């Protein structure tokens, strides 16, 4: 990157004045909060009485709490289905849209709609669609002679909720991949055609290697989103007392902090989730070095 404009004399003041809100957010709100949560995770605190030092008690308690373990397993299972689902489906859609056919802008609008609208509102209609006796999905299944499915019952709900989350995320992934695909120089394809490469070969030899930066970016973003996924899950699976039929870790954090006033325990859960995300990010960056092709 080039050197840039040098601030003259009193302009230094303006430079730092313009950066002040961001620096405040960076050091106080982001990293400061992270450290504060870390500190809180070693305390027992209900916000009403003074906080008590708890050492690692909150962390030890996590592994004895079956509710939390269920939430952790659900989060991992959700992520393991959601991330590949979003990446593969939106890449497929983008590749098909990038073939330069007529009327693509109509499809692009249609696929992007769920990314614009609130998950809260669309979850309400999904609740109807998934209805056991009254929903259109089971109506379609039955009209094809199949057995109806209890979509939002405990053993099915994780899958149903994952489908809705992928449905809501395809639009953004598609745009990321379309941007990556249009950035691939046409000459590569022309050269490959001269050498007699076919459609499938062109995809695996040119498109796929050159789209790896977008795949990396989208995988990273989807993973972070997966660990924070809340809205659809809250709307489709919640029960009383902050409970859920598919509790995920964010649910568990919310429940511990705002239903049980167990801020220390909730902080320990938040920190543990952050550590898991950090490890995954490290893994991704290692994979990036080995497999991602930058021109």
């Amino acid at each position: 990157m080039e050197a840039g404009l040098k601030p003259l004399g009193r302009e230094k003041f303006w430079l730092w004045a313009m950066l002040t809100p961001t620096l405040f957010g960076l050091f106080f709100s982001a990293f400061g909060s992270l450290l504060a949560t870390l500190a809180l995770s070693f305390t027992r605190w209900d916000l009403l009485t003074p906080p008590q030092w708890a050492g690692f008690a909150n962390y030890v308690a996590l592994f004895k709490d079956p509710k939390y373990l269920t939430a952790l397993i659900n989060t991992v299972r959700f992520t393991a289905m959601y991330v590949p689902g979003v990446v593969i489906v939106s890449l497929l859609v983008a590749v098909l849209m990038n073939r330069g056919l007529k009327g693509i802008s109509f499809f692009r609008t249609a696929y992007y709609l769920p990314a614009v609208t609130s998950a809260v509102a669309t979850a309400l209609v999904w609740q109807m669609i998934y209805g056991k006796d009254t929903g259109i999905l089971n109506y379609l299944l039955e009209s094809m002679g199949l057995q109806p499915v209890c979509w939002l019952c405990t053993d099915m709900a994780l899958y149903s909720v994952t489908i809705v989350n992928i449905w809501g995320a395809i639009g953004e992934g598609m745009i990321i991949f379309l941007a990556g695909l249009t950035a691939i120089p046409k000459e590569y394809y022309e050269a490959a055609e001269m050498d007699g490469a076919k459609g499938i070969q062109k995809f695996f030899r040119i498109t796929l290697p050159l789209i790896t930066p977008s795949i990396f970016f989208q995988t990273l973003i989807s993973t972070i989103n997966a660990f924070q996924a809340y809205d659809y899950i809250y709307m489709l699976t919640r029960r009383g007392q902050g409970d859920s039929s598919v509790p995920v870790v964010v649910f568990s954090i919310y429940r511990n902090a705002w239903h049980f006033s167990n801020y220390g325990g909730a902080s320990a859960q938040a920190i543990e989730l952050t550590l898991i995300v950090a490890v995954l990010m490290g893994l991704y960056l290692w994979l990036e070095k080995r497999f991602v092709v930058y021109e």
Partner: protein
Amino acid sequence: MGKRAQTRMIDALTYLILLIGAVGMVTPFLWMVSTSFKLPADQFTKTFIPPTFTLKNFQALFAYRDISFPLLFLNSTVIALLTTIGQLLTCSMAAFCFAVVRFKGREVLFTLLLLTLLIPFHVTLIPNFIIFSWLGLVGTSVPLWLPAFWGGAFGTFLLRQYFLTIPRDLVDAARVDGATLPQIYWQVYLPLAKPALAALAIFSFQGAWNDLLRPLVYMPAAPNTTLTVGLALFQTQMTRGGNFTVLMAGALISILPLLIVFFFAQRFFIEGIALTGVKR
């Protein structure tokens, strides 16, 4: 099979797959619209055209006593607008410094800022909540829009990417004319970055409008809350009574503002996302 026939078949297959997908993407919205115009007695009929067309659901929605939808609408609008203003102002100032100005520690600070994108949101939630509750602001909308006035990695990154594409000659020319840093920011960069600013405005508004977790923490109870929390409360009440038509009317009303913006400003959504994803 000739090459042309083969291409045509692949084209047809492409359209078919995209069409099947598009039906899946759009059907829930059509179902929402359709149900919101049905009579409660017809709510589970499996037709897209309501057997009897009615506007009663919308009347019932606005006349509902426990949850005041006009108030929710107002709250969500105010929070989303303040969020947008805060983000546009603070992100553009920081993005200008990172993209245009040379100063010590620029790369380090920018990298740190990008790192915050990787911090899961709920980690910062508890300390923020504690501070806002000490300040006595829980139950008001302040905790929902005030943080937008201390910048953000996503918006700063998006605007910086765009600022970098603006030719450096313009800065030099302004410098020759004696323009200062704030003048270059305000008179050269902001006017030229309108498409990127529009994209960030849309994303900020959308993010605030659709947010659920933070309003649940800070304004969890009716009547004074946001549309998303209001709809979630409404869901509990309506589903218990098995009344989905009014619920769908509420869902439709809540997504309408963003749908309208999307249809008129689709370009900015698409370009904005593309801007964050192409270059590193």
